């Protein structure tokens, strides 16, 4: 595109740029200016006086920990498990909602399904610990009723990560489904009427109408969440971990919290944040490109 055409386009769209201005200003002031503060990842942080540049010292400290590899792998594993198992569930739930014809019933269910989202992890951890306690917790009582042996779930390295996935599911399946429900509601009913006339049953309608219609939304949510892949849920892990399973669930954020933040070492925390962020950006760009290549849709 030659510069003349470029200038013409910009001129044509000048109203749009003007409209966008407040938003851009917001991002520059509220995000990019403070982002410059993240340079303490490369400095020795001082409370007063100027920070001194130390290059990659904090990154080295982060990576050199004997457990860093494990912490890194835990973060990836837990995130991957959550994406693999939890991600589709709110979508499926939204589909199920779509099947309810009675708007009264639907409203009631919809009004309660998101409630656990508002409980803090402190509370939820307490609930799960109590539910899964051995031998008297509800789950174990059911197991023993059917003749099995009670299992100490919260201390089991085999189960603990699944417990994280399940508790996350319980907490967020309702809330996360709201977006998909709204998206499904935007589908013109004529499409369904036409399909019914053509003889398609519910399942086929779901596959050929509903799913493709909300696919852009699904892809968007998926790709955006890739950016948070390295987060893995600090609040949840912090509240639900215990000494027995710490080596399986210690994630980057809990490690940084212990070794950095509680000791006032902000540089370490910032360095870890940058590290996670870089990976997140790569994941977003990567999945976006993959998505464009395969389905034609990107995140925006």
């Amino acid at each position, binding site marked *: 595109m030659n510069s003349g055409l470029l200038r013409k386009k910009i001129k044509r769209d000048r109203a749009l740029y003007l*409209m966008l201005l407040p*938003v*851009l200003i917001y991002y520059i002031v509220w995000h990019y200016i403070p982002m410059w503060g993240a340079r303490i990842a490369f400095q020795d942080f001082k409370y007063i006086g100027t920070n001194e540049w130390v290059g990659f010292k904090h990154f080295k400290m982060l990576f050199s920990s004997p457990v860093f590899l494990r912490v890194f792998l835990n973060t990836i594993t837990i995130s991957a498990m959550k994406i693999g198992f939890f991600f589709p569930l709110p979508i499926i739930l939204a589909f199920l909602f779509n099947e309810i014809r009675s708007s009264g019933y639907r409203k009631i269910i919809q*009004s309660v399904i*998101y409630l656990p989202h508002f409980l803090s992890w402190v*509370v939820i951890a307490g609930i799960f610990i109590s539910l899964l306690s051995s031998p008297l917790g509800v789950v174990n009582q059911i197991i023993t009723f059917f003749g099995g042996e009670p299992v100490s779930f919260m201390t089991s390295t085999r189960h603990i990560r699944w417990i994280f996935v399940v508790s996350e599911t319980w907490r967020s399946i309702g809330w996360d489904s709201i977006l998909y429900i709204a*998206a499904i*509601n935007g589908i013109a009913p004529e499409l369904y009427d036409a399909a019914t006339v053509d003889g398609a049953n519910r399942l086929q309608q779901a596959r050929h109408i509903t799913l493709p219609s909300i696919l852009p939304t699904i892809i968007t949510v998926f790709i*955006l969440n890739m950016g948070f892949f390295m987060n893995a849920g600090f609040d949840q892990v912090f509240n639900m971990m215990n000494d027995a399973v710490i080596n399986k669930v210690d994630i980057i954020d809990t490690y940084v919290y212990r070794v950095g933040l509680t000791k006032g070492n902000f540089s370490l925390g910032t360095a870890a944040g*940058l590290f996670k962020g870089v990976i997140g950006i790569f994941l977003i760009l990567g999945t976006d490109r993959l998505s464009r290549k395969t389905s034609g849709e990107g995140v925006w």
Partner: protein
Amino acid sequence: MDKRKAGIGHWVVVVTLFVLAVVMVYPLYNQLVISLTGPEYITQADGTTLIPRGFTLSTYTSVLAIPKVYWGLLNSLFITAAGLVVNILLTSIGAYVLIKRNLVGRGFFMIMIVITMIFEGGLIPDYFLMRDLHLLNTYASVILFKAVNPYYLIIMMRFFDQVPKSMLEAARLDGYGDVRILFKIVLPVSVAGIATISLFYGVFHWNEYFRAMIYLSSEHKWPLQVILRELIISMEKASFIGSTNFLQSTGAAAIEFKALKASLIILAIVPILLFYPFVLRYFVKGRLQGAVKE
């Protein structure tokens, strides 16, 4: 009117959703029950408690008797309302402009915005920014925190994308400028999207406490969540050192810590429970239908 027939599959769905709903509601019901349990029975109250023994409203009356709680409520309402106005306005404008695929620099803007979702300077640079802008201890600092959430912005873009091009064409031909198109065509048609985003932003403002605690030094500006958390913490300290009496400033009767925690959970959620059905009204199927005159 949905003319699809009900079959066995339909009932499976109904039952599944019912079970799910029960599982979701139960812990909150349990907390509600605990918050209504009398002091004589409170120690035994646990996750399986179904009925409030020694039924008493005293926990709630004691909490609601604290003036700070009312201030907190008003502050929260103000911050949420003002926040929503800013959020919806800016997010809609941003989404409207950025959805135009042939805008020069669009990709650049998008990446710039998505980066802010992942990277941040953190609490310390944010705090000093507020200080330098003279926004410390103002409501504005909290209202403008995360004013345009990139995640929600992109979702709004998705909703706007569904507006039929024909409508936009028609409006252009009628001589509508961009602002008018946005406010008179796009927004009314994307009501479900606005409702969804409003819910997200609204809940975000309602639950936000940490930044409010940090930016606002005047206690009378604190939103409800901050007040509630401070209550819990001082109660925890008092409980920890042995007192089951409530804070001195209330002159209230003895309250048990467990019941207090439960009541504060319920209090924090009730406003959302009231707000949500209101939002649900906009999740109406096929809103687009009828808007496009073919």
